[in-house]
């Protein structure tokens, strides 16, 4: 069971993941993020990768600033990253460069804000759907 974290330079994430995949880490278990607001660099993008063959797990972490909150997509390495990264994009507002289909996945397309950010309120958020306006 892994507990230690490897900090990876965000600019090298794709290259690093590809080399791990070549070493037998055939699975990307999850991609998620942690918001350290108001600290800078604000976001941590966390990757859990797994090798069934070696029965080994590793946790990679990239630190990225609040502006621009961007990192390269690893979809080219593991296709499962597609939805995982879309979820992070939707809920944290982190963009993944070269992602084939970067859209919101959980929330409606016209949602305002990114709920898992620490500065997003837990309760009392007002919302309205575009479709409802003028539908009267």
């Amino acid at each position, binding site marked *: 069971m892994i507990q230690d974290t490897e900090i990876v330079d965000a600019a090298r994430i794709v290259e690093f993941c590809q080399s791990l995949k070549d070493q037998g880490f055939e699975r990307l278990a*999850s991609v998620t993020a942690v918001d350290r607001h108001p600290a800078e660099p604000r976001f941590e993008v966390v990757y859990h990768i797994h090798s*069934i063959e070696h*029965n080994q797990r590793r946790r990679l972490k990239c630190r990225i600033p609040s502006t621009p909150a961007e990192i390269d997509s690893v979809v080219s390495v593991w*296709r*499962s990253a597609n939805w995982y990264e879309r979820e992070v994009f939707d809920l944290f507002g982190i963009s993944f460069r070269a992602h084939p289909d970067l859209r919101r996945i959980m929330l*409606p397309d016209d949602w305002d804000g990114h709920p*898992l950010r620490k500065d997003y309120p837990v309760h009392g958020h007002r919302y309205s759907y575009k479709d409802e306006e003028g539908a009267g």
Partner: protein
Amino acid sequence: MSDPEHLSETVTAALREAPAGEGGSARRMTLNMGPQHPSTHGVLRVMLELEGETIHTARLDIGFLHTGIEKEFEVKTWQQGVPLTDRVDYLACLSNNLCYALAIEKLLELEIPPKAQWMRVMLVELTRLNSHLVWLGTHALDVGAMSVFLYCMREREDILRIFEAFSGQRLMTSYIRIGGLALEPPRGWDQAVRRFIDAFPSKVDEYESLLTRNPIWLERTRGVAVVPVADLLDLGVTGPCIRAAGIGWDIRKSEPYSSYDKFDFEVPVAAEGDVYARYQVRVEEMRQSARIVKQALEGMPEGPWQADAPHVVLPDREKMKTQMEALIYHFKIVTEGFLVPQGEVYQTVESPRGELGYYVVSDGTARPFRVHMRTPSFGNLQGLPAMIEGRLLADTIAAMGSLDFVLGDVDR
């Protein structure tokens, strides 16, 4: 002609030969399956682009059941998070309870007494039976075998009664808590479980007699939704779907938790990777789970069912009302919770659907800084388009059933 693969080819060939109207795309039709559709068992929208009855592309639209559970964790105390874990996957509540509890116990470095560990294993395996029974019943119902559903619900009812006896709840049990169990196991629990588990293997024979050699079932499931195993892994599919494609990976064996290493059971594997193989694997898993429950029942250790950690575990009611110290601990835990040391942990368990992982980050306070759930259904559902593209529309129903996803688990 009845071979679906052959049929699919015939349809595609007929389309190709049909006189071109305004080019290829004009013959394509977009069909919206869902968000409300009986075979999605929840709210899932599948946008299918069809050429005749053949699926050209499938796109999925999820998020209809997103409730922001991960955000909610951040404003609850650690112990208050347990009921949230129930609500992620409503067919595998105890697996979620267990995964969350294990993650936090790892941060707290708590030692869980053997009785609690064994009790957890037993309940989690009953959960697996519960989930697989619902899967089998609804999957067979979708494909047209109606009676199986009634048989499965009959046994599921027994399991829910056992859950109710333990926790007072049938579905959202919240029975596995940080530091042990929520309540002392009820009087006579062993008889109730024994009565159920002694009869259960013969019930599995009954289901099998309805399906395993049923020609309609075979036609609908054999050779359907096959994807090379490397692609399945790449797409994030885990659990029985992977084992049905020839990889004997089970977290209970590869990274044992909660004393699973002390139990004797096998990990069923099939090679074909089709819907039928997934059926075979899950049915065999039910038999293996029954074995585990039986072993837990017979070898249940004596002793406490909660960790010796008064700052984490709520005191006994009797003590709370008679002893000052217990009263203080009770007051502290209920009002401000307990502190969890700074750190982060990724804990996985084998849920009925595959790899369930909780990534928990603590900043040393009484509330989680971040909880992320790596849910098996989310990963599994990503494999669906690859399974149905190029096949007949009717296969979508069989493929979706075989993935056994729970939309609450997908959307969180």
